[in-house]
């Protein structure tokens, strides 16, 4: 333990720590549990309009239903053991949702890999498949990004979504005179010290970290989900908390601290997997598939009965009480009190404020090398970041529960049925943009999700985030982190879309190699009617319009995918954001969907205009003929910029009634241009012609070929 921290703790305790308390504080005052470097910054985020943003997971209100969602990282465990790392990552985020008495109904994931590290990609994919599918929660979407900066530092961000009737939601604060019950797998020594592990840089040889690997048990998790939902509806079941990082310690101390009472645990009563575990091991074990409840005494019998029905182990491990003036965390074992510590010292660790040295290198150089459009398009379509992610999502059960109305690959967002209509879900990140400029990059990431929802027919309601950064001790990371949060705060206020929950993962670095600052956004939207859901595909004879910013050489296109695929460069200035335009486009698209004016829509992102057009056509049964370039006498590098450059504020829509659509767009003053018509079976524009089947082959098979070749 850091000398400074030790002094700080003992100053607040007004005494020396004993052995057990050293363990307690090294876990609770770790970055992973205590958010030491991020807590003060995260307070800046806007959560106005969010439901319970201070709980395990926040949410939004749709009708009489609370929809809760949160994203969490499991980066470090996946680097060590990808299969179990990914599995337990899902397990953890499910419990966060479950603790609110919300039934988990959907999962999404945002994965980042180095393309060459096939064992990591395969392990993570199988881990998600075996665990998520088995729990019976549909895995409805997400994203996969490949970049060299993620070598040995894969990012695995998982999002879970759950629903609960508003009057049935349970919170995590435990009042006095409640019994504390631990439900689920017997506590063992697996994953002891995991919280501390996730709060440091990876060592050279990851095999050294073996003792921290947690083992997921999807069958027990499925039983735990059903049992928890039954228990929380028992009269007298008051509060619930998931047992994740820092195990029993963190869950029980937080429950009591939030409820403003004292708590006493008798560790002899905890059901164990091994004999002779020490107090510290029992408290800190991160054995998976456990939940903690605070229940009234009268409910105990009923709760135990439910546990037995689901063949789960359960024990009554302590109680909350009114401690007079002080609020304490009391640990008993072998009949002796081992520790009595004020809860506020445990739960309110010392927080560092990040004071970055401002000043960022700007990359203003433009690319002037020429590559012909034809080979450029093939390269981009076959690049793993652009290509179809079918290989991934076909291994995940996206349809279980029969709530999925728009599955992965169909649209920018997934559609999941709830009683009040449909929720739209998506997860996005734009690491290149954040690297170039963290403030605008974070905003741009937010907008990527925003536009994905809008183009699928959803009104955005709230977002969650996962901030993956390198070590907060280094100046550049500090700057990137603080500016990213500023960006998210400002954009979220401007669009009145609150941050409902979030997670931070620091120390994503190894031997002085750092990941790009990676802001992952998970966003949720709402759509009332099934017929207003929009797919990202076109039908024969439809017209295709570009809405929003014009195709012009004046645009800024820094961070575009074509820069990295064709030239392996990350340069030039990212585009500016026009908030008024974005809002106007959102209103127009949702209104046109409601009025049945448009039938297909997608936002323009990776691969620019041509990328968007091609990705829609590859899913459709039609070709396209039209014009994209404003001028034919251009150098190749200029054409690349116009066709593949990524700017903000653009959508592509398709419609069957040209006159009606144009009239609508003119009347509402929506900037637009007619790109062409869906005809034939080729893509033809400005003298270029592409065979769709050839492109489709590249698009569909490129990831499979790259990953299954050994």
């Amino acid at each position, binding site marked *: 333990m850091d000398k400074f921290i030790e002094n700080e703790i003992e100053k607040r305790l007004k005494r020396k720590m004993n052995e057990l308390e050293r363990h307690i504080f090294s876990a609770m005052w770790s970055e992973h549990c205590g958010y030491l470097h991020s807590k003060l910054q995260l307070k800046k985020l806007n959560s106005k309009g969010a439901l319970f943003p201070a709980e395990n997971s926040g949410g939004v209100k749709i009708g009489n239903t609370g929809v809760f969602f949160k994203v969490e990282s499991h980066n470090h465990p996946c680097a060590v053991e990808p299969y179990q790392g990914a599995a337990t990552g899902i397990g953890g985020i499910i419990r966060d949702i479950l603790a609110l008495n919300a039934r988990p109904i959907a999962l999404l994931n945002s994965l980042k890999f180095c393309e060459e590290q096939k064992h990591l990609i395969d392990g993570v994919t199988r881990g998600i498949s075996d665990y998520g599918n*088995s729990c*019976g929660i549909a895995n409805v979407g997400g994203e996969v990004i490949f970049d060299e900066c993620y070598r040995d530092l894969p990012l695995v961000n998982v999002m879970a979504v759950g629903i609960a009737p508003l009057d049935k939601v349970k919170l995590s604060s435990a009042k006095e005179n409640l019994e504390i019950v631990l439900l689920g797998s017997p506590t063992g020594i697996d994953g002891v010290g995991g919280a501390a592990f996730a709060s440091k840089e990876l060592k050279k040889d990851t095999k050294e970290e073996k003792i921290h690997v947690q083992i997921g048990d*999807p069958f027990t998790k499925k039983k735990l989900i059903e049992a928890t939902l039954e228990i929380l509806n028992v009269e007298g079941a008051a509060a619930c908390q998931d047992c994740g990082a820092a195990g029993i310690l963190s869950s029980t101390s937080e429950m009591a601290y939030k409820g403003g009472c004292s708590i006493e645990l008798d560790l002899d009563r905890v059901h164990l997997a091994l004999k002779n575990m020490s107090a510290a091991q029992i408290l800190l074990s991160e054995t998976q598939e456990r939940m903690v409840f605070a229940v009234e005494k009268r409910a105990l019998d009923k709760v135990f009965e439910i546990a037995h029905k689901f063949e789960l182990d359960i024990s009554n491990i302590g109680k909350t009480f009114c401690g007079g003036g002080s609020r304490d965390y009391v640990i008993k074992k072998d009949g002796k009190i081992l520790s009595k510590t004020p809860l506020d010292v445990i739960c309110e660790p010392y927080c560092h404020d990040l004071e970055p040295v401002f000043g960022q290198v700007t990359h203003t150089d433009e690319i002037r090398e020429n590559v012909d459009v034809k080979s450029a398009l093939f390269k981009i379509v076959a690049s793993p970041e652009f290509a179809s992610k079918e290989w991934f999502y076909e291994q995940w059960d996206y349809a279980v529960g029969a709530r*999925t109305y728009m599955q992965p690959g169909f649209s920018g967002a997934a559609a999941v049925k709830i009683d009040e209509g449909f929720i739209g879900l998506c997860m996005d990140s734009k690491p290149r943009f954040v690297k170039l400029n963290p403030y605008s990059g974070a905003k741009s990431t937010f907008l990527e999700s925003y536009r994905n929802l809008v183009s699928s027919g959803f009104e955005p309601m709230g977002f969650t985030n996962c901030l993956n950064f390198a070590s907060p001790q280094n100046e550049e990371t500090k700057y990137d982190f603080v500016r990213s949060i500023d960006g998210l705060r400002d954009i979220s206020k401007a669009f009145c879309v609150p941050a409902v929950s979030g997670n931070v993962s620091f120390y994503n670095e190894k031997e002085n190699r750092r990941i790009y600052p990676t802001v992952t956004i998970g966003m949720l939207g709402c759509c009332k009617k099934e017929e207003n859901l929009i797919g990202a595909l076109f039908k024969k004879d439809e017209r295709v319009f570009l809405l929003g910013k014009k195709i012009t050489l004046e645009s800024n296109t820094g961070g575009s995918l074509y820069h990295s695929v064709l030239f392996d460069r990350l340069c030039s200035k990212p585009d500016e954001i026009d908030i008024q335009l974005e809002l106007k486009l959102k209103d127009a698209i949702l209104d046109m969907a409601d009025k049945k004016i448009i039938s297909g829509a997608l936002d323009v992102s990776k691969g620019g205009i041509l990328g968007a057009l091609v990705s829609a056509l590859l899913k459709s049964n039609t070709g396209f003929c039209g014009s994209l370039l404003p001028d034919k006498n251009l150098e190749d590098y200029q054409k690349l910029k116009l066709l593949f450059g990524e700017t903000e504020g653009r959508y592509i829509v398709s419609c069957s009634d040209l006159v009606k659509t144009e009239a609508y767009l003119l009347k509402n003053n929506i900037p637009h241009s007619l790109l062409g018509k869906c005809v034939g079976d080729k893509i033809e524009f400005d003298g270029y012609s592409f065979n769709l089947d050839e492109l489709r082959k590249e698009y569909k098979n490129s990831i499979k070929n790259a990953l299954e070749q050994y």
Partner: protein
Amino acid sequence: MKAAVVVFLGTNCEVETKAALEKYSFECDYVNSNTKALLGYDCVFLCGGFSYGDYIRSGRLAKFTPVVGALEEYIEKQRGVTVGICNGFQILCEAHLLKGALLENDSSRFICKNVELKLDFKNVSKKISLPIAHREGKYVFSASDYKEVFAMSFLKYVDNPNGSYLDIAGLYDKNRRVMGLMPHPERAMFAKNFGFDGEEIFKIVKEEIKRG
């Protein structure tokens, strides 16, 4: 008509199976693995999921439960129609209530997608599309059963996704009172993107119950 939907620990498709049955105006009860009274039901559905985590093998541990014992009696007495979907099909094979076995897919990976199928049941013969979602769905049988299995298969993949022998996706037993299939008809009855062909299977079940 009364239907029982069997819910083992680890089963996870019971809600949509019940909803699909109710759409076909069945009166539906969930029954757990300790149930012994099945004779009151006109049909019994073993639905999808991962009973007992599919540990050891898919469907293996479920066969030790009382409800599977009761099911043997139910089938023996030819009381009604038994349908196993996905994990249910695996359980029926493991319990030897249907011929053959289900092994890991040739790709050794879980496959979730919509597939084209050919349905041949008595006078019905048509192409339908249903979602599949399984990792152990490769249907195999011993050579000596070839003739029987060939005659009893009613559902075949058009483009075999998992390596099943004879492209078999579903079959019934010798009395046509037990049906097993890997695709999920209950998922193809609600959303446009998954189609509505699941109804074909439920129609057949209903007719077979009426046949008595």
